[in-house]
């Protein structure tokens, strides 16, 4: 059998429903509002506008693979954006060092979350939620509660807005990041360890994997990636005091929706990116049709609920199949646990 056994190409809804949905959106909105929707301007703006969300989702993907939640990515993205701008405009730090400082801060936050999760053994959900709140407070300390002015100078804006083949360069950054995360998760031992830990941390420990170390590093990675995304956001759209938390939910929606795509049952990079852009296409199309304010939230919220429900339902169906399989298995091969041994003697 070929190496693609587990994700054999099928026309079924199983693995590629996202692609079908995407095609449907494009056709429907293309027919409905061809002059607005089917333009390269729309393509470029959706691609760039979603690049930050996509990076956040890619960051989130790493700890989720190991079965750990990082709810602080939104807050980290935001504090990093505010920090990188404040350092430049208020403290007169030049662009390079400001960026490095923001990344280092994000990594430090990830290190602290990792410490709380791994060493203090606090549930990652609670630990990173608490960390998100602390980070929000730090952001207020840094900004003094007022929205900082973006740095003047073209270097800062062209950092993300310079165009390559019509796309803003941030899209390229995002793709590079996606490629790196994909390489790590799918082609290095580290990826195997993370999936193993996510599968069963006890089994991973008994296979000699340093569960604590990799869990910790995964949180540092998610935080660092979130911080980097924040820097890009600040350069692309200007700093805001509140955008980060608004990005958290769509990022989760994308990762979970992505886990139902391409390699169903597994968090995966390309499924996540697919999900980000399918959702964005839907939102964009609807915005051309109606101008209501609540559209974005409604769409992302419903998509998250639908995606996770679907994933859970699928997992349940798999579990039921497994139960049935093991039930017949034990009866056929070994009636009632250890209770029937080979007859000895005559």
């Amino acid at each position, binding site marked *: 059998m070929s190496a693609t056994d587990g994700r054999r190409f099928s026309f079924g809804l199983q693995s590629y429903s996202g692609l079908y949905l995407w095609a449907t959106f494009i056709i429907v909105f293309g027919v409905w509002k061809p002059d607005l929707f089917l333009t390269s301007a729309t393509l470029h703006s959706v691609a760039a506008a979603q690049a930050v969300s996509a990076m956040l989702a890619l960051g989130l993907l790493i700890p989720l693979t190991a079965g750990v939640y990082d709810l602080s990515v939104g807050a980290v993205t935001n504090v990093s954006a505010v920090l990188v701008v404040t350092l430049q405009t208020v403290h007169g730090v030049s662009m390079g060092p400001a960026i490095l400082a923001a990344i280092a801060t994000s990594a430090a936050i990830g290190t602290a979350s990792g410490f709380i999760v791994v060493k203090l053994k606090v549930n990652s959900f609670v630990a990173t939620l608490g960390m998100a709140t602390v980070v929000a407070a730090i952001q207020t300390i840094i900004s003094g509660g007022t929205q900082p002015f973006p740095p003047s100078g073209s270097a800062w804006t062209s950092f993300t807005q310079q165009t390559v083949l019509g796309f803003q360069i941030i899209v390229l950054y995002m793709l590079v990041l996606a490629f790196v995360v994909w390489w790590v998760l799918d082609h290095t031992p580290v990826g195997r360890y993370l999936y193993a830990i996510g599968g069963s941390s006890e089994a991973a420990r008994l296979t000699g994997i340093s569960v604590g170390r990799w869990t910790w590093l995964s949180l540092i990675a998610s935080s660092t990636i979130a911080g980097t995304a924040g820097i890009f956001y600040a350069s692309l759209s200007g700093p805001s005091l509140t955008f980060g938390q608004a990005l958290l939910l769509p990022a989760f929606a994308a990762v979970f929706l992505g886990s139902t795509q391409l390699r169903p049952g597994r968090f995966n990079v390309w499924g996540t990116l697919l999900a980000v852009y399918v959702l964005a296409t839907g939102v964009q199309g609807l915005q051309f049709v109606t101008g209501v304010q609540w559209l974005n939230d409604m769409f992302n919220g419903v998509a998250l609920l639908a995606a996770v429900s679907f994933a859970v339902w699928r997992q349940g169906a798999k579990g039921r199949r497994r139960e049935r399989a093991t039930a017949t298995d034990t009866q056929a091969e070994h009636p*009632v646990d250890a209770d029937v041994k080979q007859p000895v003697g005559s």
Partner: protein
Amino acid sequence: MSARSESVADREPSALAVRGVSKTFFGNAALSGVDIDVAAGEVHALLGENGSGKSTIIKILAGYHRPDPGGEILVASRALEPGSPDSAYALGCRFVHQDLGLIDSRSIADNLALVAGFPLKWGTVRDGELRRIARRDLARVGLDLDPDLLVGALSPAERTGVAVARALRDDASAPPVSLLVLDEPTATLPDAEVQHLLSMVRTVANRGVGVLYVTHRLEEVFQVATTITVLRDGHRVARVPVSSVSRAELISLLVGTEFDDVHRVSAELPVEHDEPLLVADALSAAPIDRISLEIRAGDVVGVAGITGSGRESLLSVLFGAHPRQAGTVRVGQTSLPPSRPDLAMRAGVAFLPPDRKTQGGFLDLSVRENMTISDLGPFWRRLRLSRRQEKTEVTSWIERLSVRPPAAEAPLSSLSGGNQQKVLFAKWLRRSPKVFLLDEPTQGVDIGAKAELHLEILEAARAGAGVVVSSSDTDELAALCHRVLVLREGRIVTSLAGSAVTAAAISHACLGADLGAGVGVDDGGIS
């Protein structure tokens, strides 16, 4: 010894009457025409080794299994509907399993009420009434505890008592409890606690409830039971009053006197007497109590013992899967620190945990990923894992161990138990470890796969590895091992070697009989 007379069973009304019940699983008879009679108010011990059909009969009583047509089960003289858990409950049959199903973080009163319901007034729990009912329930098993105590704060025997009290609780929708089945209630209790539990069992029986008491510990049988039913290989081999049987006779009934004709492949293996590969010295970790052992190249050493003897934890502690309280473990010249499976692996130790589903494998990952996770180094080429080389190695292991279906990309969960275990074997074999620690290596594995796994174990020993097999299956130990260490209460009490390694001898030693005592007693004389 009990002074109570065997005639109790004849005078008292019947709590349970099992008549000619058989159960066949795909052509294998697990039970053949078994009879069991439990009188109201008596404690009736059900004895049998692993594989005797004991669990099967209990699962039939609980409605989990449907018996073959033909037999009959009466609970308090009313027929049990086969395969219906509701029917068992409705007839007044209650079960307390080894897993008590209590919630540690809640009070006794809450735990008792969780099943039967809370006393309410206007939708609010009536706390006074809740406590009153709890006290009454506890009194029924002879426990005098504050119902507000958290279950987690109780001693093990008290917790079992609470579980029994909960099982005996009145239920307006069912007749009074007539039969209580206790499935190895003392297996995990420390000795000091056992007496407390036994007195609770007596209290329950004195109230007129028939108690079917399943255990491996013979001392308790003599202390608490009136009558004994012994199962062996699916047959009832004896039903005797406790007063008329000696301990040695009982053991012979349990183990049988048949010759051990399992092919002893291991007997042909030479054991090299050079430096030991693995040395454990004064190892302690409850219930293990200062165990020392040495494993040499080519050795296949068995670890036997009843549940709670330390057999289940010895290998985990050696490997570092469970914490160690004291003692040292050395592999070659390397000393292994406690709780460091990674260092144990690096020193050349492989550990196959007893629970495949949560400790051994990654059910959602593929066969390939499960196998190669133990060492990815060989595939790391030019900054990526070479899928092709990985594939080649996995395919060769699948062929060598004949894993079915031979699908490297199938999730582990899609394989049968035996094939899952083969995959996990391959995961360790490919590291060529010096020492194998195999905990229940063939539990839940079909006969064919079991034989194949046994051959792999012996092959590894022949190639110069030291192998330790911990198993509750005495036949497996007899077939595989040069030497069997028998554990009781956390200590090695007997070491059998060479031709002395027979299933019967292992069982005797596990149960605490002097070697050979009672073997040869004719079963027929008693039953």
